[in-house]
């Protein structure tokens, strides 16, 4: 794979990161997407929008989040010094709130009165429901029946926040099917509704816009690690579902060629199609949900079902900017399986007193594999993108509790 090419920093005018991205949607949505792009460009340059966004990130969501030196874990693994970017400490318990505040403000600016969203683990759904309550917008969240069952605490949180949660019973009843249903709602109610996409997926400008709302993770981490250690980190780790927490952490480090980056996908039960969500291990380029990227599919171009113990990673496509970073070789993509993620969560809980989301546990699992081989002067940052309270039922059914 070619190395050291200039990093992808922005999509082109057609929303392409290299060959990936673009816009593949029914014509009915195109005008709304063009409006969104224009509204976003204006908001981005509007100091009053930016100051409101910064205000809410600080006073409502709780930014900046700490960069915490996990000393017991580092000592236990006997190698690299591990720092956790504590996105799990944000209001609503995950990085998703960063993007939801940004898009929520944008929806108000565009005069939309209703938010819709898809959710897998429920973290994005809860963040969307929270922002809808904060801004006085109507809200409906689509969630696969399977995910509603395995992440039920988040369903209750959304309802308490005044959001209507609609179960989706088609396909594998997970995130992909929830997005299909969200798109059907949007195509029907496009005049008054903003689709609050939860990751760096979908048609342009979503992948770019969501990245910009999540960049704050890496901006803070870069400053914090320089303060803490006086140097740039050796390696960054983040889990990759759609890829918003990972691109959020990685983006501002991309020009720093000495900083390695590792994206960790869901290896699920096995690498047979249908048993995992490791798009770079088992996928190929194609079109799903508005964008051209790596997807898990059959030879006939039908989208494959996926499996992961973590609902937030259980999705057959990856953000197009990740596909470009993969092609360039700037980011290394690997996967951790269900068992490794469950194990990593328990290690962090016992070593540091922090219960991580099973999504983030995939990144931790990779750190646990690599840290012992690295020298004690090496510095790893892992994005602890969410907290694990929602996953207690999964631990229970896995026989761990």
């Amino acid at each position, binding site marked *: 794979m070619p190395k050291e090419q200039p990093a992808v920093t922005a999509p082109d005018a*057609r929303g392409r990161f290299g060959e990936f991205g*673009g*816009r*593949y*949607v*029914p*014509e*009915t*949505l*195109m*005008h*709304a997407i063009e409006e969104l792009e224009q509204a976003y460009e204006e908001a981005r340059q509007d100091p009053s929008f930016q100051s409101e966004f910064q205000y809410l990130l600080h006073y409502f969501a709780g930014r900046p989040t700490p960069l915490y030196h996990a000393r017991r874990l580092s000592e236990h693994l006997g190698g690299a010094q591990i720092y956790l970017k504590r996105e799990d400490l944000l209001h609503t318990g995950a990085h998703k709130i960063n993007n939801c505040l940004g898009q929520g403000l944008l929806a108000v600016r565009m005069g939309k009165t209703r938010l819709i969203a898809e959710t897998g683990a429920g973290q994005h759904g809860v963040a969307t429901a929270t922002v809808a309550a904060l801004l006085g917008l109507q809200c409906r969240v689509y969630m696969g029946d399977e995910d509603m069952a395995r992440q039920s605490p988040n369903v209750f949180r959304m309802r308490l926040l005044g959001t209507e949660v609609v179960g989706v019973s*088609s*396909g594998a009843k997970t995130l*992909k099917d929830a*997005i*299909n249903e969200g*798109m*059907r709602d949007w*195509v*029907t*109610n*496009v*005049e008054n509704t903003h689709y609050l996409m939860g990751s760096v997926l979908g048609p342009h400008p979503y992948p770019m816009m969501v990245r910009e709302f999540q960049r704050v993770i890496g901006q803070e981490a870069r400053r914090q690690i320089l303060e803490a250690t006086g140097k740039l980190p050796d390696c960054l780790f983040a889990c990759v579902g759609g890829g918003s927490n990972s691109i959020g952490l990685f983006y501002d480090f991309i020009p720093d060629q000495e900083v390695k980056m590792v994206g960790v996908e869901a290896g699920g039960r096995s690498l047979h199609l249908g048993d995992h969500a490791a798009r770079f291990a088992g996928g190929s380029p*194609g*079109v*799903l*949900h*508005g964008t051209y990227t790596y*997807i898990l*599919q059959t*030879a*006939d*171009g*039908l*989208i494959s079902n996926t499996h992961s113990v973590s609902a937030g990673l259980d999705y057959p496509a990856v953000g197009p900017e990740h596909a470009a970073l993969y092609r360039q070789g700037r980011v290394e993509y690997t996967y951790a399986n269900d068992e490794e993620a469950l194990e990593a969560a328990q290690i962090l809980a016992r070593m540091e007193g922090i219960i991580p989301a099973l999504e983030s546990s995939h990144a931790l699992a990779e750190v646990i594999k690599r840290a012992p081989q690295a020298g004690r002067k090496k510095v790893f940052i892992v994005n602890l993108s969410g907290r694990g309270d929602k996953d207690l039922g999964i631990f229970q059914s896995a026989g761990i509790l």
Partner: protein
Amino acid sequence: MDTGVTSRIGSKFRELGEQKAKGLIIYVTAGDPALEATGELLEAIERGGADIIELGVPFSDPLADGPIIQRASERALQGGTTLRKVMQALPGWRKRVSVPLVLFSYYNPILQYGLENFARDASEAGADGVLAVDLTPEESESYVQTLRKWNLDTIFLASPTSTDERLERVASVSTGFLYLISRTGVTGERKEIAANTRPLIQRTRKFTRLPLAVGFGLSTPQQIHAVEELADAAVVGSAVVRAIEERFSAEGAAAIEKYIRWLKQGTGSSPA
């Protein structure tokens, strides 16, 4: 854009124009309820009076479709119908009907088949046009070039939400006819024709001389008649798919033919 080549779709609309008649376009999902049934259904639909048939290629994630066509796609996929199987069966179906056939698909199966292979196989198998429901004009450059090379009409959708600028763009990449979506939303039957259908037809006329077909939500002869006061053809999809779902296994293709014949009354002309 007029390529000057007389396509089967172009001839059909010319013929309708000469007879001062309006067209009836019928959608059916290939492989629903089984691939073996599709040939028989196509014949029945033609006998019932369809002027053009849209042949839906089932897809795993039909996000522009309502529940009726979603269920049809699921049935077809469960029976193993894929774009490849449709292509293999198409020459046989082509022999059984003479009306123009339009392949109606989501883009990814076409992309994975390979644009060049797809266009060649579709053309050689006797398809007349293609509509990729999630392919925007902006992303369609090589698709349009390749399909044109194989004399396939490229049909695109226009929506009430399309601005004039977008209508012009849609018209510029379309041949055969333009498919106007009568209302925002997914496919499925509706009781009333949306108020913005008429302005959409009028706005689109400014940008093209291509025939205009109106679809999404039509299910009765009255609705067909209403849209054809201004448009050149009406498309009926979900209502036909529902008729197949409810009646085909018990009553056979004759029931579907009768149903199409009933819809045909809306066009003001009866089947030959």
